[in-house]
């Protein structure tokens, strides 16, 4: 197992290196000039653009810029934004907890609802129950996130006034941002402010979790149906085991494998930034940060963030692969 993990980690190095080169070149091929134009907007004059370009070292040859960037990266320095001069790492530590929180919320929604729905559909294949679950899945996959987000906000925020429509906490509450995890900060602040934090999490979690919900439902359904037709399940039933025991001990334990894989992949994708959801709900996470950085040609931020995302994605995948071994002792990596 240790060798497997080490090998996977070594493979990650050329992947990240290749990604960094591609990103570096791609970002500089974006039309519309560089960050100087983004900083100055309509105030940009050729003289000022040249001045900023020189100040930021963007007039140096590309390979020099790249080597400087990698050199800093190897020292743990992700650089600073061209726009506000703020260290990428410092801003990341403020924004990433919000994305983690949203990811967890979306996963709770998607896993908590998707797997029971998938099991339900699998137990009644081709029935009206299965049909309803299929419709829910198709709805979840088809509806654009921003449409769902605005709709949820409109119904539950604007019309019913049940839930907040933006942000992680009511700005009027005296909650100090200690950890930048809104729920933890709210707990630390006391006064049951945690209820407000949870309320803020509900709508974005549903909006973000709908597509994973549909995916988990379909995968669970397919996996359970497939395993249910295996010989060992028939044998178990023939032995006279109860339905519940067959389901829990023989079907679900084996059906979990593909489901786990998909959950892992979705988790990695969600952590890499829920761009639309964060924009619709003004969620101060990394997704909307990436978008604004791309628009501003803030190369350093985009490069560093995508490398961080790639690392997270690779790590989550590794954890999923390792998790296989624990879920199914028959699987061993060598």
């Amino acid at each position, binding site marked *: 197992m240790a060798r497997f993990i080490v090998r996977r980690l070594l493979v990650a190095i050329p992947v990240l290196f290749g990604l960094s080169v591609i990103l570096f070149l791609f970002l500089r091929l974006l039309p519309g000039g560089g960050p100087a134009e983004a900083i100055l907007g309509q105030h940009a004059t050729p003289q000022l653009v040249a001045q900023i370009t020189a100040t930021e070292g963007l007039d140096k040859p590309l390979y020099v810029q790249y080597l400087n960037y990698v050199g800093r990266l190897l020292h743990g320095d992700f650089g600073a934004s061209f726009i506000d001069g703020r260290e990428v790492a410092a801003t990341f530590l403020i924004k990433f907890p919000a994305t983690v929180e949203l990811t967890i919320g979306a996963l709770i929604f998607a896993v908590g609802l998707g797997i029971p729905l998938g099991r339900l559909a699998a137990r009644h294949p081709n029935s009206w129950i299965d049909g309803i679950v299929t419709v829910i899945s198709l709805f979840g996959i088809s509806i654009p996130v921003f449409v769902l987000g605005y709709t949820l906000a409109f119904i539950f925020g604007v019309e019913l006034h049940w839930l907040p*429509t933006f942000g992680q906490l009511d700005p009027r509450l005296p909650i100090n941002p200690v950890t930048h995890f809104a729920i933890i900060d709210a707990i630390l602040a006391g006064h049951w402010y945690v209820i407000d934090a949870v309320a803020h999490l509900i709508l974005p979690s549903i909006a973000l979790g709908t597509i994973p919900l549909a995916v988990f439902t379909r995968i669970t359904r397919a996996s359970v149906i497939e395993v249910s037709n295996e010989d060992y399940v028939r044998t178990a039933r023939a032995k006279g085991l109860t339905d519940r025991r067959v389901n829990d001990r023989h079907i679900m334990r084996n059906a979990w494998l593909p489901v786990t894989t998909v959950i892992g992949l979705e988790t990695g994708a969600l952590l890499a930034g829920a761009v639309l959801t964060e924009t619709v709900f003004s969620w101060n996470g990394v997704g909307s940060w990436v978008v604004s950085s791309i628009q501003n040609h803030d190369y350093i931020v985009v490069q560093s963030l995508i490398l961080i995302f790639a690392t997270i994605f690779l790590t989550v995948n590794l954890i999923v692969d390792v998790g296989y071994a624990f879920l199914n002792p028959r699987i061993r990596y060598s």
Partner: protein
Amino acid sequence: MRKKLGSLLVIAVFAAAACSSSATPSPAPTAPPPTSAVTSQATAVATPASTAVEGGNMVYALNGDMVLADPSLVSDGNSLFVEAQVVQGLLGLQPGTISTVIPVLAAALPTVSADGLTYTFTLRTGINFQDGTPFNADAVVYNYNRWQNYPPGDLQTNAYYYGAVFGGFGTASNVASVTAPDEQTVVITLKTPQSNFELASTLAVFGIQSPTALKAGNADTTPISSNKYAQGELPQGQDMVGTGPFIFKEWVPGDHITIVKNPNYWDAANAALLNQVTFKPIGDSTATLQALQSNGVDAAFSISPLDVKTAQSSGLTIIDRGSSCNQLNLDMNQSVGGKATIYANKNVRLAVSEAVNKQSYVDAFYSGLGKVPTGFMPPATTGFKAETLPAYSVSQAKADLAASSVTGSALNIDLYYPSNVVRPYMPDPKGIATAIANDLTAIGFTVNLKTEDWHGGYVSDATSGKFALYLFGWTCDWAGADNFLYTAWFGWSGGKPNPQFGWNNATANQDMLQALQATTPDAANALWGQVQDLLAQDLPVVPIVNSQPPGAYTSKVHGYVGASNGIEYLNTVWLSQ
């Protein structure tokens, strides 16, 4: 199943309703506002003070985050809106106006020497900074010298406005000296007369900060990434320390900025009524509207003009921003790539000017918050002169086009508009461009609509002269003729006309240069008037609209004084319970 389908239909209807209120990005910030002006002279309080309720925490939606916590180092509207509540300058603007200069930390408007080179300010007495240190002439001198001596690098590039107003830093600056003959007097001496000096000095970037806090916070540290003062990371009372009615408390980047009431504000009659204001950056216009409708925020600096009717029907009040401080033009470049375009022909420019039905655009796209221009900049701008612009007339436009002798394939033209952007003067670029294209088609042009991403090349391509016919506008930095006519549009650079227009009129450029250095306002305005006459003769652009960018607030908010240049002070605002 039927119930489920019904639910789906309901959701679809709601989705359509939600989307119809525009999913486009909210407008980019308006041009940076000048400094705070909450003085005893500034009494533009919308509601009688006797009914005002003190206290409360207002949540205010901005359309983006603050960039840096040092006003001298920013040039964006969001930063300056926040910072103008905290930091004040010697001069400011009368709240609710865009060009009425009033003394703020100065006791009166400065006396100006006959040669226009020396400005003598007498300061108010008894004012302390929010850290308790005294405001005096030495503090003013310290601040002006600090700006002037910013070293080359990121401090200079961030201090855009100082460089733009005074022509550079250090010895390149037009400021010869700033001295303090006594504790209450500051003398600013210029190298050459500068007619925009007073109006430009109202910018919040010229807000005076506590020298003690600046020194203790190492505010001149470079690179800015390690400048804790500029990053707003120092504790309350040590960062962004001014003399304003609010004190900077906290900034969590991307999440919120908090300012609290200054209990020791020097002008008690105009002290803040609110205990606290929390600024919340919301970058999406639909999200902003929903936040207002759900009472999540109390006020929003901007909403989409397309959402104005929805907002009003939801019980929200649209901010009355009075006189416009922006203008959208249809620019006609007379020379692209060194070759004359059809717009070099005066009759073509005249035909285009007569073909566009500006009033119909104002009616269709601005929800009543715009006016057809009567000149080449907004009417409330200092130095404005009304001109007789060509009236809408399809028949006259056709006649002028015929007189131009431009025919055949030359009438097949491109019209550029920006995509992925909403500007205060351009809420629906594609819609406006389409309407203009239809009007031009009606007189005989064949119009190809073309677009580029605003952030991805439109601005640089337009300003470098790659487009012949295109939409472009400007929101004032300060409401002076120089800011529109010279800085934004027609000033020459390197002895050549601005390639954005190819308008080769040396007389106009000479007039502008003389106006910039005029020693009296009357002399400057006369020259700016001549420039506007030349523009009216030559018609290098078609002025399309002067708009009032809409913002909104809920029924709880009172005492809000709006201004279309974004200079709005929250000390007069109060919340009903």
